[in-house]
């Protein structure tokens, strides 16, 4: 057993010390984090550039009614200057010229002229402000016409916004705020991660076995240790590399998620204050309403993630990674021992790849309907359960199903290890012979 430990140590250390492993392990969560944080950050980050927009308004509809804010100012210009700017835009040092045509009420069109592409935010801001002014004017006219007292206030009071919250009853009837979308997303991501890990580390075992065989070092080693010890040390060593990577990723993700949480929380506060200011100053809620809703949703998501059974999800990920990995690694190890070249390996790999690929194909369907028969059977059958059960767990799976799935998987592992040991022992010393499945099955029944 001491020798297995030596092998395990070598398998683990040579891989963990590789630059590619270190870079991949640290960079992947950072990239994932960056991909989620960056858009949020950029969205909350205010445009700090000061811009002045020249307004030529022959209709006087919006004259002196366009509110400047901290960064975007409106400056009204007479026709002369407007004509001058049109021919020589650079002389005015304006960001853009806003032209309100005479027939704006009938055509609903205004123009913004600039020598550069006008940003989306500025366009939205200007559009919203003009709309509000004209809408306000129209409404005022209608209100004045009908003469109903406090009509404007009454109209404002009819505005409605509804949010449907999904509540999941916990064990002790405790209501936990849940979200189908969140469970689906987490299930999908977790299932995909399982696929990725099982495949990546399973193949690593196969390549390791093939390396030893093609290097011809295997005969030296098995004259010191039993072939099974070598295979065992390799599978466990590589499995630990995988666990190391998963652990680092989970820790980093939690750290990043916490970071994002506090960041978004902080950011939303500012936005809300800003929005309230705008509302107060303008008495219009439409523009502002959208912004805090978005950031509140991010907070909500974080609350809902908190409402999931995180320890169970993490436990399931570890359990199914370990067992799924061992199941597939023993197959891949057996294949690696039986073949001489990459081409042969490709061919033999196909039947072992199929259940993994199948799992990924049905993963989305399972995430959409985690209670269906497809989801149930795929999470019980050991070849698909490491991916599918992990994807189902965020939705809540009855305990008996989890236990049944785990028990079947554990039993299958024992079978697959026994089989791999038999094939490995014969295959590893077999050179220059193209093997087929029939031959490999024969090896299972060889005496030592």
């Amino acid at each position: 057993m001491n020798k297995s430990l030596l092998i395990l140590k070598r398998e683990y250390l040579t891989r963990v010390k590789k630059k590619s492993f270190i870079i991949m392990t640290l960079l992947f969560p950072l990239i994932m984090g960056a991909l989620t944080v960056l858009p949020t950050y950029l969205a909350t980050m205010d445009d700090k550039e000061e811009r002045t927009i020249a307004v030529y308004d022959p209709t006087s509809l919006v004259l002196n009614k366009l509110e400047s804010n901290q960064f975007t100012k409106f400056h009204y210009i007479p026709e002369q200057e407007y004509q001058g700017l049109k021919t020589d835009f650079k002389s005015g040092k304006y960001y853009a010229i806003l032209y309100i045509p005479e027939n704006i009420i009938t055509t609903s069109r205004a123009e913004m002229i600039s020598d550069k592409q006008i940003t989306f935010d500025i366009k939205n801001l200007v559009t919203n402000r003009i709309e509000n002014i004209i809408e306000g004017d129209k409404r005022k006219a209608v209100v004045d016409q009908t003469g109903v007292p406090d009509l404007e206030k009454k109209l404002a009071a009819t505005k409605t916004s509804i949010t449907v919250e999904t509540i999941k009853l916990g064990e002790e009837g405790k209501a936990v705020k849940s979200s189908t979308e969140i469970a689906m997303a987490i299930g999908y991501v977790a299932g995909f991660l399982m696929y990725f890990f099982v495949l990546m580390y399973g193949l690593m075992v196969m390549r390791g076995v093939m390396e030893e065989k093609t290097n011809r070092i295997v005969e030296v080693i098995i004259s010191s240790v039993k072939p099974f010890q070598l295979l065992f040390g390799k599978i466990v060593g590589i499995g630990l590399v995988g666990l190391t990577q998963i652990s680092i990723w989970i820790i980093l993700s939690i750290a990043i998620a916490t970071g994002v949480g506090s960041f978004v929380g902080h950011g939303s506060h500012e936005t809300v204050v800003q929005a309230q200011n705008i509302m107060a100053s303008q008495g219009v809620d439409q523009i502002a309403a959208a912004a805090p809703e978005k950031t509140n949703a991010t907070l909500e998501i974080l609350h809902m993630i908190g409402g999931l059974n995180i320890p169970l999800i993490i436990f399931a990920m570890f359990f199914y990674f370990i067992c799924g990995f061992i199941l597939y690694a023993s197959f891949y190890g057996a294949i690696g021992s039986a073949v001489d070249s990459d081409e042969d390996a490709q061919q033999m790999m196909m039947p072992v790849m199929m259940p993994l690929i199948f799992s990924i194909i049905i993963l989305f369907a399972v995430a959409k309907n985690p209670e269906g028969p497809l989801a149930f059977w795929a999470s019980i059958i050991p070849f698909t359960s490491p991916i599918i059960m992990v994807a189902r767990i965020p939705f809540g799976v009855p305990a008996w199903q989890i236990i049944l799935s785990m028990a079947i998987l554990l039993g299958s592992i024992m079978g697959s290890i026994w089989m791999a040991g038999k094939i490995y022992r014969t295959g590893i010393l077999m050179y220059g012979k193209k093997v087929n499945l029939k031959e490999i099955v024969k090896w299972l029944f060889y005496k030592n």
Partner: protein
Amino acid sequence: MDIFQANNVVKEFVGHVALSSVSITVKEASIFGLLGPNGAGKTTLIRIINQITAPDSGELFFEGRPIRSEDISQIGYLPEERGLYKKMKVGEQALYLAQLKGMSKRDALKSLKYWFEKFEIQAWWGKKVEELSKGMAQKVQFITTVIHEPRLLIFDEPFTGFDPINTNLIKNEILELKKNGTTIIFSTHNMSSVEEICDHIALINQSKKILDGQIDQVREKFKTNTFEVIYRGDTPDLDNHLGANFKVLEHITNEHQKQMKVKFLNGNSNNELLKILMNQFEIVSFKEIIPSMNDVFIQVVEQNNREIKL
């Protein structure tokens, strides 16, 4: 004392017999040559000695008692098809292999230092194996085979990949190991090196042992009463003088030397031939031809193959 003994070892693979009732006895502190054509079953026998595979039947003894799995720590094996982890550093790898043989890290480091100094390869310690030439890697493999000072060493074609200088170096190391009491099983197709270093041989052909014994006795057994004579003077008409008891197999005469091979047909004595020849010319040398291991190998294997066909 016999350090290793195999009795009636049988090993069958699906479709063919690799070893049929092979027995060998290896004396302590000797070099035992395991010979045979490709595919005869040598590697299978070696793997059985190393307990990589188990025989279907037969008995194996190590130091006079049935072999145990712990005995592999007393055996060092240099396979014919050998390699190292390419990406691993030389020193790290040698240490790893030594530890797998059951050495403690401290002892392993100490011995490795000794061997690396002896072979003057200390500078390779931190290099990756893929940077080494084939001969360099072979040296490292030799060291990792003998590092744990096993009582029995098995070398399968140890000289492939070595230049003549390194071949000599390894040959001397093997003889040195023997002098220090290590027993060596040596498998090769290079018959001149067998003659040079082996004490005993066993020849396996088509899964059966067809010859074994002390090397000089084996060669003696295969001599054909043929003599080589080098002479000076005129070339005589030998056929008339030699009579029915001798036969000239080969007769070469050129400017430099005159030489012939004469075979005794009946059990005549050397002196009888000498007497006849002395009257014909001046004899420069007269010696009996003892067959080389190469000749013995070819003769025995070909004859055996013919017999099997019949």
